[in-house]
């Protein structure tokens, strides 16, 4: 196995090429900057807080929008904080939910302390143990191509832990206004009338 890890920006650029019309929910921290850098658009929901909730938020959205794919893009620390959600997702088995973890084995926003994945914790194995039908760890370009193939052909939900370099990404910042981010997303998905008026 190569010792050179994948670059998180390159990984996300490659994945966004095959995103299609999937909705995206980013977990707080670097995945937000990564998604904003790679494919900024109204159908992205950026979490600036609420650590541990990106996967459950993705599940809620996937259940509400069964005809759209929903991609959760998050980090290893964020996923670990809400790791029980693997079991909750597995129990619901939404066939439109993809969970992509950019696993740099560190808490990037708090001083680059090591997360549990640097000490042997295997997020893909945890997801498989929870009952997620398709799980994988991505180490290199070949694995990444396998993931891209799995996104088209394997049963969902899918959890992929992508091992990436422990580098600070470029800070590409979306708006911090949660109400704006929420409403923009709903307008894009539901249309303006449904997003702005209660039925």
């Amino acid at each position, binding site marked *: 196995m190569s010792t050179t890890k994948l670059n998180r920006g390159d990984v996300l650029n490659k994945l966004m090429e095959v995103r299609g019309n999937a909705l995206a929910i980013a977990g707080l921290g670097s995945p937000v900057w990564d998604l904003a850098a790679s494919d900024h658009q109204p159908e992205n929901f950026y979490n600036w807080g609420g650590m541990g909730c990106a996967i459950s*938020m993705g599940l*809620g959205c996937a*259940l*509400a929008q069964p005809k759209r794919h929903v991609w959760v893009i998050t980090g290893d620390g964020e996923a670990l904080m809400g790791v029980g959600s693997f079991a909750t997702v597995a129990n*619901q088995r939404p066939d439109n939910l993809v969970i992509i973890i950019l696993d740099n084995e560190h808490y990037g926003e708090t001083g680059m302390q090591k997360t549990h994945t640097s000490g042997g914790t295997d997020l893909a194995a945890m997801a498989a143990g929870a009952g997620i039908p398709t799980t994988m760890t991505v180490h290199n370009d070949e694995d990444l191509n396998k993931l891209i193939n799995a996104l088209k052909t394997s049963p969902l939900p899918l959890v992929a832990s992508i091992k990436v370099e422990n580098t600070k990404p470029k800070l590409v910042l979306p708006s911090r206004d949660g109400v704006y981010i929420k409403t923009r997303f709903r307008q894009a998905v539901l249309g303006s009338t449904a997003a702005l008026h209660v039925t």
Partner: protein
Amino acid sequence: MAEPWTTAAHRLFKQHNIRTVGYVPDAGLTELIKSCHADNDIKSVVMTTEEEGIGLSSGAWLGGEKAAVLMQSSGVGNTVNAIASIVSSCQFPLFMIVTMRGQYGESNPWQMPMGQAVAPVLKSLGMHVFEVETDDEAAEAIEAGLKMAFVSNAAVAILIGQKLIGAKSFIADVAEEVINVDN
């Protein structure tokens, strides 16, 4: 006799088009959980921790649907940061039903501190908290709360008191026989 609050809750969920119900079980929620599971128009989601309910409900709203979250009072502490960070910052609607422990007639001392903390903690987060003790009060508060949550983007918690759901009796409810050690 008044309509049981759990029947009223399910009826009002239908009336207000609640499509997802996330829950961590409690004895007091048994009937409501059963009726949600029996309803094909409601996606019933058992969660590993109450915090998931906040993500689930917010995610449902992003996708254009309404969700409700059910939990026991001891789980309220698990929701605090998610409510503050996600619900308050983004003004997501939130509708929670909390069945109380550590309150009227409680027989487990470990439940008391959290039971006493629930209302002040939720109020400190800016939530609208309705404490109810009869079936009629509960139905009325659930109806009011559903409107407030989804029409006014409010965060609402209905606290169902132990006077209504009954305090758990360890001897009768849990086992056929009780043996005390640590004598």
